[in-house]
């Protein structure tokens, strides 16, 4: 019961933040899908099934926040690399600013409770 509640809580928090985590991973370098997904999977609780990242990447591309280019791979066929567009960088910056404000406010409330 507790674990079901925990699961639904994490799902809700993940819903709004996951796309920015993807953008953040692409901020300094282009990555191919598998690499990106494995990096996300290493962050605890961010994704439960790796495949669900691909619909998100597809939407980010449709929204013009990422683009893809093909690069040769050392092993196997060429790989599709994802990189941020200028709009993607902007979206990430906006999120980072707002996130800092938001988490500060929540942290303060969680720590001090209702006391002034």
């Amino acid at each position: 019961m507790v674990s079901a509640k925990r699961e639904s809580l994490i799902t809700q928090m993940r819903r709004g933040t996951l796309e920015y985590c993807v953008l953040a991973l692409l901020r300094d370098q282009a990555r191919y899908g598998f690499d990106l997904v494995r990096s996300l999977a290493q962050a605890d609780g961010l994704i439960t099934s790796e495949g669900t990242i691909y619909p998100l990447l597809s939407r980010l591309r449709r929204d013009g926040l990422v683009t893809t280019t093909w690069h040769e791979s050392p092993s196997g066929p060429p790989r599709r690399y994802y990189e941020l567009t200028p709009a993607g960088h902007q979206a990430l910056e906006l999120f980072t600013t707002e996130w800092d404000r938001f988490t500060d406010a929540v942290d303060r409330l969680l720590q001090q409770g209702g006391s002034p």
Partner: protein
Amino acid sequence: MTTTADTLVDNYLRDLEAELRDLPPARQREILDEVGEHITAARAAQDTQSEAAIRTVLERLGDPADIAAEARERFGVQAEPAKPATPWLEVITLVALVVPFLGWVVGAVLVWLSRRWTTRDKLIGTIGGLSWVVAGLGTTIAPRVGPPGPAAITVTGLIIAAFVLPYAAAIYLAIRLRAGTNTVPATR
């Protein structure tokens, strides 16, 4: 060379393609391609190509239904309920009921196999379908009734009615079927 591992991957991608059916074709293609590339990259990153290793890759990717659900959510697409199937049994029943004699018998039997008609509808279908038996009796009796008179007219009327009834029953059942089909979404 096709291995068990390849078969597992093919099956996985086929399931995913089926699950993604509600998305625009371009998005379907994109997600399918990228998941396929993920699997290729994962296999290249692994030393072994064992069946167990592939199963792990596919397990980490997750259930195709979950990926499709995520895609529908990200693209704001509603899951399309499966189209109501054509009621073939009922259509065949109706066709049978317009074919004289043998068709009427077949229709009267088939109508009971349907789950779309109520018992009352089925009774009407059966009586309609089998009414020509009455007509058969009527035709055998008719010569004995004798000279034209009220009795002969009644018998002739019965015979004509008996031959018309299967068609009336078929029309009635068709109307009930249409009404039933239209109310299906409302009852869900």
